[in-house]
């Protein structure tokens, strides 16, 4: 065991045909680390942009990008493949190919869906003039987008994509993920400062203030899970959420306790803030700071920032799924997957995680095209006066639940042995763990509504209520 996880070890051993040397190990590490990113994260992040525009269009009741299909890249492919033919022949062959009925309908559909849009955007950005503004600090300005991308990609190392597919297995995975994604703060600050523009500076400052503030609720939310599970190893946390039988959904952290559900919500909201998504997009607020920290960025560098943002959204989704929603486990029983051969099991687990991640991704987009933006002070207030107290209360509640539960789960989480099994509650205990906090909360909410819940009649009239 080299500490790189099962997949790396197995691959390296297979490559070397015995005890792996460093070459085999390197190849295996690269293969196992890079392949998931390339296959899972990168395409989704790229497609995310077109998805976002399509969803925005649907919400705004329009069509969305529908002029760029796949015909452009396809034509380019033909040109490259048939380089030995004259252009006219290439054109004729391409036209003939496109007129094949399935191809034609496929191209039409791709055009309607705007599938080529991100290709078009990408190659346009490649072709744009490369500008470093006069007042900018060249090195800092150029470095920032790559750092942002690195900060967004690196935490994926510790996210378990499947039972056998974790790039970096470490006992402090959760801490690692939070710590490494902190690079983004530096990157945004560098972008803001290095641009030499006031709007960028303001955007960078806002980004730093916001990101640093929201590290706290994120850390506390993860801390709550760690408290519950007794480990920081993300893979072990996934293992903790294993529940035998068809109702494996019941093993997920989010249904274990209302406090964990609260923490999931807090994690999601703070995650939105971490990836600078609306309603927390003050750092690039288009209507206030022209484009925030990336005001001066053009072309590919700006594209890298956008890519980093989408990757970070995926990261938040992956962490949310891992910590609270059972990771790569299916909600309808896990045994039927675990029994499969490895080559079948790994993609199925990956797909399940992917579905969860994309769901979070879509909800983030939905939110973006619905809600207005917070103001700077409101963002801070939300973090320190709402989310952090909620986290603290939840952690307290979790601790009380743990104390009350007393007993421990006798079983062994599948795949890996948890360092401390999760508390084993009787079903009555589960019921109590839900009922008591929910009842208290509901009472408080009713009281609060009674005291403060009046709405102005004019507003009621506007929203179709009684006038």
């Amino acid at each position, binding site marked *: 065991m080299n500490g790189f996880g099962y997949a790396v070890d197995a691959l390296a051993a297979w490559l070397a045909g015995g005890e792996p040397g460093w070459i085999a190990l390197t190849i295996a590490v690269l293969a196992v680390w890079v392949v998931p990113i390339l296959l899972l994260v990168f395409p989704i992040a790229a497609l995310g942009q077109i998805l976002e*525009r399509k969803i925005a*269009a649907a919400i*705004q*009741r*329009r*069509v*969305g*990008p*529908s*002029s*760029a299909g796949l015909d*452009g*890249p396809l*034509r*380019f492919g033909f*040109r*490259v493949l048939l*380089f030995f033919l004259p*252009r006219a022949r290439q054109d004729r062959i391409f036209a003939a190919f496109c007129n094949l009925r399935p191809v034609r309908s496929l191209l039409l559909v791709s055009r309607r869906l*705007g599938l*080529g*849009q991100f*290709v*078009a*955007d*990408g*190659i*346009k950005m*490649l*072709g*744009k*003039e*490369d*500008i470093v*503004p*006069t*007042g*900018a600090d060249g090195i800092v300005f150029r470095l920032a987008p790559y750092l942002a991308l690195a900060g967004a990609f690196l935490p994926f190392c510790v996210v378990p994509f499947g039972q056998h597919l974790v790039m970096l297995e470490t006992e402090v995975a959760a801490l690692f993920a939070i710590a490494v994604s902190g690079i983004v703060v530096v990157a945004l600050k560098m972008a803001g400062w290095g*641009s*030499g*523009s*006031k*709007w*960028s500076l303001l955007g960078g400052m806002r980004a730093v203030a916001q990101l640093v503030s929201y590290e706290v609720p994120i850390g506390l939310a993860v801390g709550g899970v760690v408290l519950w599970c007794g480990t920081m190893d993300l893979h072990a946390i996934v293992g903790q959420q294993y529940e035998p039988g068809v109702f494996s959904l019941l093993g997920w952290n989010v249904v274990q306790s209302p406090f964990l559900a609260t923490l999931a919500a807090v994690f999601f909201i703070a995650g939105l803030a971490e990836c600078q998504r609306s309603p927390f997009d003050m750092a690039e607020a*288009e*209507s206030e700071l*022209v*484009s925030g920290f*990336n*005001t*001066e*960025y*053009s*072309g590919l560098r*700006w594209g890298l920032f956008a890519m980093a943002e989408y990757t970070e959204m995926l990261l938040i989704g992956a962490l949310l799924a891992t910590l609270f929603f059972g990771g790569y486990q299916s909600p309808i029983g896990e045994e039927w997957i675990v029994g499969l051969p490895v080559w079948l099991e790994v993609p199925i687990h990956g797909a399940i995680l992917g579905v969860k991640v994309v769901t979070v991704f879509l909800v983030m987009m939905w939110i973006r095209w619905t809600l207005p933006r917070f103001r700077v002070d409101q963002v801070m207030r939300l973090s320190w006066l709402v989310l952090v107290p909620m986290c603290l209360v939840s952690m307290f509640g979790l601790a009380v639940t743990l104390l009350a539960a007393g007993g421990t789960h006798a079983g062994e989480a599948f795949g890996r042995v948890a360092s401390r099994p999760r508390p084993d509650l009787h079903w009555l205990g589960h019921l109590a763990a839900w009922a008591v906090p929910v009842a208290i909360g509901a009472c408080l909410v009713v009281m609060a509504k009674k005291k403060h819940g009046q709405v102005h009649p004019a507003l009621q009239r506007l929203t179709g209520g009684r006038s």
Partner: protein
Amino acid sequence: MTTDERPGNRADEQVHMAAVDEFLAWGKEHSLFYLLFATACCGIELMQAGGPRYDVDRLGMIPRATPRQADLMIVAGTITHKMAGRVRTLWEQMTEPRWVVSMGSCANSGGPFSKWSYSVLNGIDKYVPVDIYIPGCPPRPEALIDGVMALRERVKRYRTVGERDRTPYIVAGPEAPFGGHCKVPDFTAKKPDGGGGGSA
């Protein structure tokens, strides 16, 4: 940048470069981000064009607030003498390749203010090179899309790898009129980068 004097083979005669160029042009054509730049009446129609009814996002056009990320400046509305220099600055802050569409009578020729007004610039083409003029006061969003389609024809012929093509183009002419027949004024004599002011 004028590269008329550059030695070497014509880019479009080199097969691979031409293929790359074609691909790049396809990308540019379908991804014209426009600068959110509305001065007057035409700005409202520009908004309507971005709205659900006309939806220029269909054509891959989304508004960008900062000129750095925009490919296309739609001069929508009256440009006064006080504003003209700012338009020029914005144009200089845009990165190549960049395009300018003059929307509406005011930007075309001063329009209603060409005769009597002392403060209105008679035609934005005195300050920035205009690719497409769209008549109307204000033009309908469909007319704007019409002009954008004409611009896309022009973008398609733009060569990234080879020479800069800023030749005039007649919408209703034959297939490729006036290709390479035009003197290009040196609009880039000043350093294209206006410096860190953002869009201030």
